[in-house]
């Protein structure tokens, strides 16, 4: 079983990229499973199951940070995909704050970014980009030649990883992504997270609404302080 973890900002085209990839993989006789992790709503699991006839599941992270949730549930998900005799588990994460890197050692980490999100986006994302194996740039048909090039240059400046420009909506230039997925090695258990990104379950995530660090516990900070631990 091989694990492919796909991250990226909301609406960047993660689902569209994975759908085209899934179609091509299924056509080649590959056995897939699909897991979608989102905050409160998603129905991509039903779409993938219906369209490709593959086992598909979803997890709603609710009050948990979705990437924190992914760390907790992926172990079970690998076991599930193996029981379904899938060769590839495609995991699509929610990716909301752009700071987290949900990728795991030995799996394939794909970040999906839209060309229309501004040329400086690659500079604003941390580990989600720098720890990925492959960057897929979508909506390339909507931007000028110059911006395509500047976007790529900024991306390569932030992370030296392969970049594939696509028009995922029309299924254009996704072949290199599929080839990369097929080249993913077997997952070695126990799987480990690739980096230690700033993901935490905090009192704010858990619903405490008071403003000011004095009201919260765990790793906190004041305006003029570094991070410190507050609690028992």
């Amino acid at each position, binding site marked *: 079983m091989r694990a492919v973890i796909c991250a990226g900002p909301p609406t960047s085209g993660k689902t569209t990229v994975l759908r085209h990839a899934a179609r091509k993989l299924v056509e080649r006789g590959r056995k897939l499973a699909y897991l979608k992790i989102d905050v409160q709503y998603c129905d991509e699991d039903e779409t993938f199951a219906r369209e490709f006839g593959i086992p598909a599941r979803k997890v709603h992270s609710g009050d948990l940070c979705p990437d924190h949730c992914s760390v907790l549930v992926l172990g079970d998900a690998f076991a599930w995909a193996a029981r379904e005799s899938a060769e590839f588990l495609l995991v699509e994460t929610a990716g909301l704050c752009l700071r987290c890197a949900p990728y795991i050692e030995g799996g394939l980490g794909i970040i999906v970014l839209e060309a229309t999100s501004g040329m400086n986006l690659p500079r604003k994302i941390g580990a989600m980009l720098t720890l990925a194996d492959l960057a897929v740039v979508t909506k390339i048909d909507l931007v000028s*030649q110059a911006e395509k090039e500047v976007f790529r240059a900024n991306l390569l400046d932030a992370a030296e990883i392969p970049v594939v420009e696509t028009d995922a909506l029309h299924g254009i230039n996704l072949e290199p992504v599929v080839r990369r997925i097929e080249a993913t090695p077997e997952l070695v258990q126990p799987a480990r997270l690739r980096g230690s990104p700033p993901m935490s379950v905090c009192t704010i995530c858990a619903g405490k609404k008071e403003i000011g660090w004095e009201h919260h516990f765990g790793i906190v900070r004041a305006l003029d302080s570094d991070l410190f631990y507050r609690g028992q």
Partner: protein
Amino acid sequence: MEIREISLIGGCGKTGEREPVARLDMRMGDVVSVVGPTGSGKTMLINDIALFADANTPSRRRVLVNGAPPPAIFQEDPSHNPIALITQHTTFLSDLPVREFLRIHAKIRRAARRESVVEETLAFANELTGEPIIEHAAMTELSGGQTRALLVADAVVIGNSPIILLDEIENAGIDRLRALELLKRYRKIFIFVTHDLRITLLSDYRVVLLRGAMQAVVPRGEEERRVAGRIGLLDSIMVGMRDRLRAGERVVERDLLGELRQALEAPSAEAVR
């Protein structure tokens, strides 16, 4: 890699039958028009070229460069792609100032004369626009016409793309004939998707499309050169009248009749531009 020629190997039309033109060779320096009614597959044709189609698009066409399948790097890195496609939807999203943006692009392209290519790009764009581009304005503040002019200028000068695909430049709000005249100074392959009579007649040949298939490749004839001149005169009459309206003046029937008479009487050699 020096590009001498790109070829489109015919596939099939929308109804699935083989297209009548089995192969279209376009050589460096050619100006090509793609013509046909709305929905006939003009945009699909230039998309096929832009994608280096390899029997993997609905038309099943294939693109060859210098007679062979194109190298993978063309599609792997936009700055190595020899084709610039400017569609009706292509736009700038950056809010950087114009000059700074162009400088960044020139830097990425490792242009040897970084400042002078930026100057050349701005001068080129300004020749096409009604009102000159303000260099310190944000890219996103440019008008539709200015944006189009700068897209073309950037692709031609900084991008230095040897093959330029332009989708309906006549609707871009820029001076289309001035654009064609300026573009012809650069040795490239220009492919225009167009509904415009004059652009078509100023091209070396036209590819005629119907129901998604290339029906014929028609070279411009000698007589058409003369006709193009006469149509040019008619066109200037129309432009003149439009300019009068734009200046708040009125159009006068007597003036129009006089100009039409002059156009009719002009010897054909004079009419040729």
